[in-house]
């Protein structure tokens, strides 16, 4: 079983397996009703049934087609791939390769791809939401769970004390009190931390630890810790597919846009020195870039599907 799965969900799976069996006994049904009477259990049960509903099953018109497609063999594709790429893949050995695989987040605990936000839950039930193109590793700091946000943004509603590490090299760390909602994100070279409800103790790369109270948002970069004018709602606008920028250098803005854009977005020339404030929607990024190009004296050039340059 997945290690991070809450007990209620594990039990929901057990019940699904038991109730699928031949006609359940009355005693078993009574036991299920008692289990289901707990709201947390009922919620887990409903979530599992919803998932199963989306997967389709015996009785839906296309169940046979689903089963048939899922039986299509995988092996010949693997063989063709091995033959097609020859020895190329064997060249990826050694520290560089391993580090790169780690950097890609292929082994991260939570990982989202470009344009896809995600949600998760820690073992103690702490809910976690994360932005597109985000990688988070789960570890422990003594008895505290420790979330390492390697890339992207997260929003966590801590049930108990929680350690946060932000940036690929954990350049900023924080300890969050139970009950606090904390949003943290990396944009370009800067880290944004916003707190609601509880408090957090921030450890910047330089200088003394700093206490953040509810309602405070700060920005940490090589120059130190500065208060940010963004509200908690603005700092978490990504949960609704929006981005609120407050005097953000264009390269950093493009870095944030990149979570919703397959390919590279880069600023060059005078455009790279501009700072932008505004509210942007992330769902249709081409429209957002177009809007940006109309409002500012910048040019957009596209190089294939990979590289878009703003100058």
């Amino acid at each position, binding site marked *: 079983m997945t290690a991070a799965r809450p007990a209620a969900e594990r039990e929901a799976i057990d019940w699904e397996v038991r109730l699928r069996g031949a006609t359940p006994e009355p005693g078993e049904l009574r036991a299920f009703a008692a289990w289901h009477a707990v709201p947390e259990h009922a919620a887990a049960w409903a979530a599992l049934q919803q998932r199963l509903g989306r997967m389709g099953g015996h009785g839906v018109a296309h169940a046979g087609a689903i089963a048939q497609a899922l039986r299509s063999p995988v092996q010949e594709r693997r063989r063709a791939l091995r033959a097609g790429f020859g020895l*190329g893949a064997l060249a990826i050995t050694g520290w560089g390769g391993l580090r790169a695989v780690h950097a*890609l987040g292929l082994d991260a605990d939570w990982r989202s791809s470009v344009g896809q936000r995600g949600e998760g839950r820690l073992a103690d039930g702490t809910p976690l939401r994360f932005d597109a193109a985000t990688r988070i590793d789960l570890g422990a700091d003594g008895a505290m769970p420790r979330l390492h946000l390697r890339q992207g943004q997260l929003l966590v509603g801590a049930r108990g004390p929680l350690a946060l590490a932000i940036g690929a090299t954990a350049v900023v760390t924080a300890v969050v009190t139970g009950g606090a909602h904390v949003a943290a994100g990396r944009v370009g070279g800067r880290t944004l931390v916003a707190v609601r409800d509880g408090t957090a103790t921030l450890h910047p790369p330089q200088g003394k630890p700093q206490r953040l109270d509810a309602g405070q948002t700060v920005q940490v970069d090589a120059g130190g810790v500065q208060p940010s004018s963004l509200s908690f709602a603005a700092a978490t606008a990504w949960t609704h597919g929006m981005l609120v920028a407050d005097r953000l250098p264009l390269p950093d803005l493009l870095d944030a846009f990149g979570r919703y854009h397959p390919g590279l977005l880069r600023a060059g020339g005078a455009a790279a020195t501009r700072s932008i404030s505004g509210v942007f929607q992330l769902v249709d990024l081409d429209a957002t870039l177009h809007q940006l190009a109309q409002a500012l004296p910048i040019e957009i050039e596209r190089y294939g599907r990979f590289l878009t340059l703003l100058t």
Partner: protein
Amino acid sequence: MDSALITPRPRPVPALRQQFLSTEFRRSYGWLAASMHRLVGCRNDAEDLASSAFTELAAIEEFEGIRQPRALLTTIARRLTFEFWRRRDLERDYLDALARQPECHDASPEELCLAVEELVRIDAALRRLSARAREAFLLSQYEGLGYAEIAERLGVSSSMVRKYVAQALDACWPAA
């Protein structure tokens, strides 16, 4: 939207990174697109796959750790190609099977697209299981067979079938 002109702090690392990426793009994009073309046989698909591989390469923060960019690109491209082929196989087999079901009403393109997305998700989840566990789950979920019948077909015990089904449910249901 308003804008103000201020000079951002110098950021040497992103500049290096950008340089690394554009150098690598110029050096290897054509090579990768050509290798992909040989493999998948279609120029457009090959370019899409090569672009996607670069996009993933660009997502690596610790680019200093990349000693052999082409080897890494190859590894990424292999995975992307596998996923691309797998999606096509699933879609083809699904549509074939649907076409052979005359009683099935015509699904809209959107519905088909969603169904294939779902297939890809289920397939990726089930691929982590053993062949027997996968088959046990397909028989239970999509063919409505009881545990005893599945056990007989697969030559395992009923309690093993229950374990298989539990494994599959766990794999297919992302933890909340």
